[in-house]
């Protein structure tokens, strides 16, 4: 069942001109929730409200944000950090930059409230280096918030101190992985860390740290304002809230759209994005960024954009960065390009990933160029088995899933390609 999306008014990116300016944001009730929280609420109350709202992390893993916050140990007087993840490098994902551009203060307010809930001393906002223009916008917003006394020492006379720093990445997909992001913030190569210890125990500079996605934190002021009950009433029952769908590929009106979770994929393609270019049929949909398994165009009926529905359909919500491919798409070529991406971005720490991504790419080039054999398809699936769950971080899984599910779900494309191969009988 699809949700009522036609009457939905955007709340993360509301239709208010120049909302990125702090004066306009304040005039529209901005920072009121922060004032309310600092005046009347306890940190526990904030955490419990956010936990009850069940904001599921918008960076891909979909973990309850409030629950994540509650893993932080009791304050011991030392520094504690939030690392806000704006690395946004998963192909198909381009949503957080809309927040930097159109509503940065909503995120800042959310991060300060989260900081209050966890007794944080500093928030590091990690933004991918390619987003130079958006990093500048975010820095301007942070400077404005400092100037108005929302950041710094003794915020609004409450005695609560918090700092916020914007940190630019420099081109590495892996730095979107939380422990790699922390390594990068510490000025090192972005090698993911072995867990445990988890970031809440030993994070940035060995201190308790929580990593949240930008969009996740931007949801926090909305929950404080309207209550957890309001939030859980939006969209899918077990995966509630407004969500930024980044839709790209062969559709007539690609872009970022804010709608409730649980929207049917067909509504998004045909009603929101105006259908497929040239009136063609959908061949494949990647629902949440390149690492989520693709769905066939003929299995989309009734599939909705929430964790449960997508799990049943055999995929994942990921970052809600949907990629639509029309009937003329060459799946072998697409899969090769995805594998090339993961091969390029593997950090090289773990052998199954460093070599596995390379083998996947090489095998796919062989098939793409018409030199493949039937047994190469089995080899691809076997390689996936050798990679999944055998590495420090999930990049190997992210590289293996698209291969496994593209080869199995679009097998005829691959078989056709390898069967055309003529090879001599020895």
């Amino acid at each position, binding site marked *: 069942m699809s949700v009522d999306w036609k009457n939905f008014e955007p709340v993360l990116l509301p239709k208010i001109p120049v909302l990125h300016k702090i004066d306009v944001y304040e005039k529209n009730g901005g920072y009121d929730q922060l004032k309310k929280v600092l005046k009347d609420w306890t940190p526990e109350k904030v955490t419990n409200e956010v936990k009850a709202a069940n904001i599921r992390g918008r960076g891909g893993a979909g973990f309850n944000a409030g629950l994540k916050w509650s893993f932080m140990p009791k304050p011991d007087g030392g520094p504690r950090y939030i690392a806000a993840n704006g690395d946004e490098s998963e192909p198909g994902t381009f949503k957080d930059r809309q927040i930097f*551009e159109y509503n940065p203060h909503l995120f800042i307010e959310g991060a300060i409230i989260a900081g209050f809930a966890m007794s944080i001393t500093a928030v590091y906002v990690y933004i991918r280096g390619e987003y130079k223009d958006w990093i500048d916008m975010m820095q301007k917003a942070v400077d404005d918030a400092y100037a108005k006394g929302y950041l710094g020492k003794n915020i609004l006379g409450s005695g609560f101190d918090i700092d916020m720093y914007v940190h630019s990445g420099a081109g590495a997909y892996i730095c979107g992985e939380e422990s790699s992001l922390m390594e990068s913030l510490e000025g090192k190569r972005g090698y993911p860390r072995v867990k445990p210890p988890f970031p809440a125990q030993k994070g940035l500079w060995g201190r308790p740290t929580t990593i949240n996605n930008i969009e996740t934190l931007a949801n926090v002021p909305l929950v404080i304002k309207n209550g957890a009950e309001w939030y859980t009433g939006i969209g899918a029952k077990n995966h509630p809230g407004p969500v930024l769908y980044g839709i790209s590929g062969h559709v007539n009106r690609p872009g970022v759209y804010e709608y409730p979770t649980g929207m049917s994929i067909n509504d998004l393609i045909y009603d929101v994005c*105006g259908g497929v270019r040239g009136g063609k049929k959908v061949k494949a949909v990647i629902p949440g960024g390149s690492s989520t398994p693709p769905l066939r165009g003929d299995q989309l009926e009734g599939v909705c954009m929430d964790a449960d529905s997508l799990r049943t359909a055999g995929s994942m919500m990921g970052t809600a960065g949907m990629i639509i491919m029309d009937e003329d798409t060459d799946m072998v070529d697409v899969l090769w*390009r995805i594998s090339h991406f993961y091969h390029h971005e593997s950090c090289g720490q773990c052998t199954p990933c460093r070599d596995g991504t390379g083998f996947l790419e090489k095998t796919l080039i062989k098939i793409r160029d018409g030199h493949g054999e039937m047994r190469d398809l089995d080899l691809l699936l076997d390689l996936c088995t050798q990679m999944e769950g055998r590495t420090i971080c999930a990049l190997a899984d992210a590289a293996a899933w698209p291969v496994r599910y593209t080869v199995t779900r679009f097998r005829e494309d691959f078989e056709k390609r390898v069967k055309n191969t003529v090879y001599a009988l020895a």
Partner: protein
Amino acid sequence: MSETFEFTKEELAEIDKIKAKYPDKKSPVMPVLWLAQNKFGHVEPEVQQLVAKTLDIPAAHVYGVVSFYTQYYGTRKGKFVFDVCTTLTCQLCGGYDILHHLEDKLGIKAGETTEDGMFSIQSVECLGACGYAPMMQITNGVYCNHLTKEKVDRIVDDLKAGKMPEFEQIPFPQHQNESSK
């Protein structure tokens, strides 16, 4: 005729400000490398030495960071670097056509620099502009979206005339076409 690389007093003051944001002396290496690259146009080993000396950390560590992240130019590139996105959505929407058009136009391949040192081309991984594909970024800076061959030609001509393309603000579609509901 070796070049010397130094930071000015103002830049050193700026670096002190950066250092204050981080609790240890290794952590500011990324922002300081950015500052150096913006000033010198690259971070070749001599510049890495300068950054290491300024932050009082081993040069090997700085080299490790430079070689890990794709946006740091460990070797010199052209004055303008075209980072053409060819990943997934850009591939689907003709990113390779744009790349090949640019290669033909400038007479170089991806990864190369023109003889006059003006332009470099790189085929890069997803730049996070999937809805506005195909696209490219110029020298780690401005994003050029919705590329066509004509638009690429115009951008190259503008750059030759010393004019950098402007930031393209892309309106949020939901704010525009209410009637499409």
